[in-house]
């Protein structure tokens, strides 16, 4: 089975700082593989371990995306494809889906495209569905369980009061959740081996054709929602501290 797994080298939200006006400082911000995409890579690796085949790790992003590709390859990816797009030239969600679709078509026969529920920085969750449309493949969203049997894919979607089971023929695009699996940590040997695997660089211009979709979609503002943490230290014996905690929670309106 030939699998393509999508990932984003996202801004590391734990390291993100805001300027005095509340806008995130994206220039030079630390990045890492989107946490949710680790679940996507894990699912791809599990399917490959069960059914054989290859995993192409595909991303669109700046030069520092290479480290996320390497990480995914250490987890079990076969090869990497990097569509080079520095942040200032990065397309919107539909544009991203367009370039990814073009790149997937160049790869050749693909049975399954795996992505995650959304990126851990912007969490728009749009690319998977758009990509499926552009590839003319069915899209199975938010799968909490994935099975591939006899050329078909079966997914379970969880709801508050039940489970919906979807099934379709391959090829298909599937998005997984953080609860779908537990991503593995590669060993140092796997990291070393991955560092020697090939990553193909592709320019945006090599993929862009006359059918490029212009959405007119523009992000006009991006601000960080401030979370004011209260450092409250409750002193005294446990019984006394528990009473103080109860009172504090009531004062905050939590209870």
């Amino acid at each position, binding site marked *: 089975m030939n699998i393509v797994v999508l990932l984003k080298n996202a801004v590391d939200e734990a*390291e993100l700082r805001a300027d005095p006006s509340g806008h995130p400082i994206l220039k030079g911000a630390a990045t890492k593989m989107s946490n949710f995409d680790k679940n996507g890579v894990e699912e791809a690796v599990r399917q490959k371990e069960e059914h054989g085949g290859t995993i192409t790790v595909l991303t669109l992003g700046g030069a520092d995306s290479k*480290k996320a590709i*390497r*990480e995914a390859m*250490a987890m079990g990816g076969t090869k990497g494809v990097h569509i080079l797009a520095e942040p200032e030239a990065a397309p919107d969600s539909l544009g991203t889906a367009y370039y990814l679709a073009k790149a997937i078509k160049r790869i050749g026969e693909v049975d399954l495209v795996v992505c995650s529920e959304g990126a851990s920085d912007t969490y728009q969750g749009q690319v998977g569905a758009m990509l499926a449309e552009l590839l003319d493949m069915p899209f199975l969203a938010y799968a909490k369980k994935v099975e591939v049997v006899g050329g078909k894919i079966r997914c379970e979607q969880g709801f508050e009061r039940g489970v919906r089971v979807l099934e379709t023929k391959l090829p298909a695009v599937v998005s997984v959740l953080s609860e779908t699996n537990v991503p593995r*940590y*590669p*060993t*140092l*040997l796997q*990291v*070393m081996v*991955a*560092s020697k695997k090939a990553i193909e660089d592709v320019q945006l211009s090599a993929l862009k054709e006359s059918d490029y979709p212009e959405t007119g979609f523009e992000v006009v503002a991006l601000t960080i929602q401030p979370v004011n943490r209260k*450092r409250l230290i409750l002193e005294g014996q446990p019984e006394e501290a528990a009473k103080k905690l109860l009172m504090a929670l009531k004062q905050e309106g939590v209870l």
Partner: protein
Amino acid sequence: MKLFGPEHERVLLSLYGDAASEFDDLLRSFSAVLEAKVLPLSLGLDQGKGDIAETRRVLFDQGLSKLSYPERYGGLALPFGVYALAMELAGAADASTAMSIGIHNTVADAIAQFGSEEQRRRLLPSLLSGEKLAAFALTEPSSGSDARSMSTRAAKDGKYFVLDGSKMFITNAGEADVYLVFASTPGGHSAFLVEGSNSGLKVGSPLREKLGMRGSHTAEVRLERCHVAAEDSLLGEEGAGFEGAKKLLDSSRVIMGMICVGIARTAYLKALAYSRSRELFGKKLSDFQLTREKLADGVIEMNASRLLCMHAARLKERGLTFASEAAQAKVLATEMSARTCDAAIQLLGGYGYTTDDVHRHWRDARLLAIGEGASEVLRLLIASRELEPKT
């Protein structure tokens, strides 16, 4: 807490040039595992609520013991300096686990350097994978820094040596499958590999009142008419054990120094975070000049210690002598670590003094200015090298 930081990237870049990015990937990945699977268990280990075998297994599975050994024995053949940086990260995640593995690796190093091909093939793969655990038994109840005065004896009896004596403060005692035991033989001091299952090897009660490194197992090891087959057990030449031990300790001192850098960095990051959030007199603690002096001194000393350790590591990689540099690195790093942890306690004030999760770092660091060569003895070694006639 991010264990692998920009300072590590910069050290790798300055020392390894083009190869640095590969080592970056390696250590960043290793750091992520430490943050997820070791760091959260570290406080529990200090408080006696965990099992070091669990955290050690994580590091063995990662391949920490394989880093700098040849591929033919299951190693990864990476530079010693990369292993040293990995041990700093391990020390930052949990000092007890890092020390336990550091000592285990010293025994693996002994077999790689001085063992016969048969001993290497028999023992190295299982030690490098962590399937077997090793302990290093040199110190005795009455001889530490003056190891030459050891009273443990090994007498030849046909095809066997019979070991009698006692070894003290032995890390991994009771857990180890293999003990590297030093003993006096007619031709000088010799090194022996003794199986943990040998009926002549007895492990005393665990030393539970340790100041720090409470996650690791420490005990006395007694050798009572302990028979070992000469061919299998004698490591290197008879009588060459003490010279071998000195070479092993040179490398080990670099590693213990790096563990101390890691301990210091963890305590430092806790103090840094606290100083940013704590307010007094209407200002942040980090706004006070005396706080900033501590924060600046901590970074200066940690970087200096790391660099001196890495300098010794690079000399070793190139096959040059590095005994004095290793001793300098260990003295600087271990004493720096205690100072930096002490400064962290000071910045956290009452919380620093009353919270295990802060003062344990000072307690952990304190050991390493004593073990593997006390600072005083290492200063004698360093000074004697300086006093040697220069050619």
